[in-house]
């Protein structure tokens, strides 16, 4: 039915093997770097919002959900109680939805308390053009009216195309547009790492990631 709804992990692996031909991916964050960054983000979220009370964590599939779970665990360890954590699929809100083949949807799971009046912290792996976050803001608008929306990302690689910034950043990573940033998490890829590689000339016909 959907000819090219490629699952994300497969797509990323394909990219990795393609880029390995030209340049070996370089690890910029290893497992302990990621762990420390997430611990810091968890504390920053608590500090900024004066506790976990108003906070709802929403991860953007796929890897944002894994990051949200980890940040949620760290907040629970500090505060002694868990914060509502869910996932938010933005596929149908993307501005390029009519320009590409139909994509399979990811799971959306809004915590039972809803998001009205809460502080929603969106969590994603890489902040790049800002278009995913714009789509997420639209999706949130259809679900409720939070008191505030904040953004946490593991890597901010720059090259924004929209006036969007992150409130919590694991690592600012200055990149060039010919580079490709890949986040691996144990849940999906078997190991934790942030990799950077030169895109091969062959696979970047108009690709913007």
């Amino acid at each position, binding site marked *: 039915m959907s000819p090219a709804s490629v699952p994300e992990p497969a*797509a990323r692996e394909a990219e990795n093997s393609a880029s390995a031909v030209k340049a070996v991916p370089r690890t910029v964050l290893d497992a302990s770097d990621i762990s420390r960054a997430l611990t810091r983000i968890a504390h920053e979220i608590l500090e900024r919002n004066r506790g976990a009370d108003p906070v709802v964590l929403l991860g953007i599939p796929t890897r944002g959900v894994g990051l949200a779970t980890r940040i949620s665990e760290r907040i629970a360890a500090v505060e002694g109680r868990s914060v509502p954590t869910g996932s938010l699929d933005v596929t149908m809100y993307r501005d390029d939805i009519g320009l590409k083949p*139909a994509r399979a*949807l990811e799971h959306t799971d809004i915590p039972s308390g809803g998001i009205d009046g809460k502080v929603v912290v969106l969590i994603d792996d890489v902040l790049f053009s800002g278009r995913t976050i714009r789509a997420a803001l639209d999706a949130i608008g259809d679900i409720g009216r939070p008191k505030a929306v904040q953004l946490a990302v593991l890597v901010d690689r720059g090259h924004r195309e929209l006036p969007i910034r992150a409130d919590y950043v694991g690592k600012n990573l200055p990149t060039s547009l010919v580079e490709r940033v890949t986040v691996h998490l144990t849940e999906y890829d078997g190991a934790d790492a942030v990799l950077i590689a030169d895109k091969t000339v062959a696979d970047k016909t108009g690709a913007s990631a």
Partner: protein
Amino acid sequence: MRHLLSAGDLSRDDANLILDTAEEMRSLADRPIKKLPALRGRTVVNLFFEDSTRTRISFEAAAKRLSADVINFSAKGSSVSKGESLKDTALTLQAMGADGVVCRHGSSGAPHLLATSGWLNGSVVNAGDGTHEHPTQALLDAFTMRRHLGSLDGRRITIVGDVLHSRVARSNVLLLSTLGAEVTVVAPPTLLPVDMTNWPCATSYDLDGSLAKSDAVMMLRVQRERMNDAFFPSAREYTRRYGLDVHRMAQLPDEAIVLHPGPMNRGMEISADVADSNRSVIVEQVTNGVAIRMAVLYLLLSGSTDSSTDTNPTEEPTA
């Protein structure tokens, strides 16, 4: 796939993709704003040459919840009653720019003709053609069963009634066997097709013998409007041998469910107390129908219509 014409065209992966997508679409019903922007700017035409309540409303609700523009066409009150042909109707729709055409027609194969004739560029969805197929009904039935029974692999499903005239039965047999279920079709000999050797299912004339090992029972409507002949001696005899009443329902395993595609002839193929019992998922089927049709319309229409972009699936959806 550009069109949805037959449940038999779906591979197991295709079918599961539609069912999984419908699962996400169904959660929309719990939201305050039941609207998604996926098909903004697309036009869906409901082309109904045959009467329908739930299928047409269901497709209309599905398209509207995905923000598509919906044009409803029914043969009554249109130029079809002045003698306009299917071809000219299709050319008119094409000229108006229909991205998707949902077609119900009394003649088997009409949606296939629309899809393959070149009259239309849009995607065609078969919403029931004659006595041939009704794929979205089969999908919503499978979806409803999956929500109650889990995976359909190895599940035993009994389809009872007027199989000869039923597009619902044919689509269900094809789809459910694709999904790994063991399907048994039960009907009087006069209401079974002459040659069923190509159907991936077992057949039986005895309802009582099949009930005890069924995980789900689907009762089909006795389609009087398609019966130009006497297929059984009397309605009472049919009800006694093939109708589902509380006594027969008691033979079912505890967790088994009862389905009916509607509209029901209460007292004929299904008794009123069975239709209203807590095993009956008939109302839920209607709710699920909207989610399934949203999933089908989304997967067929949301993507690029320009096939040249299909060759670039590696682009990464990062922020």
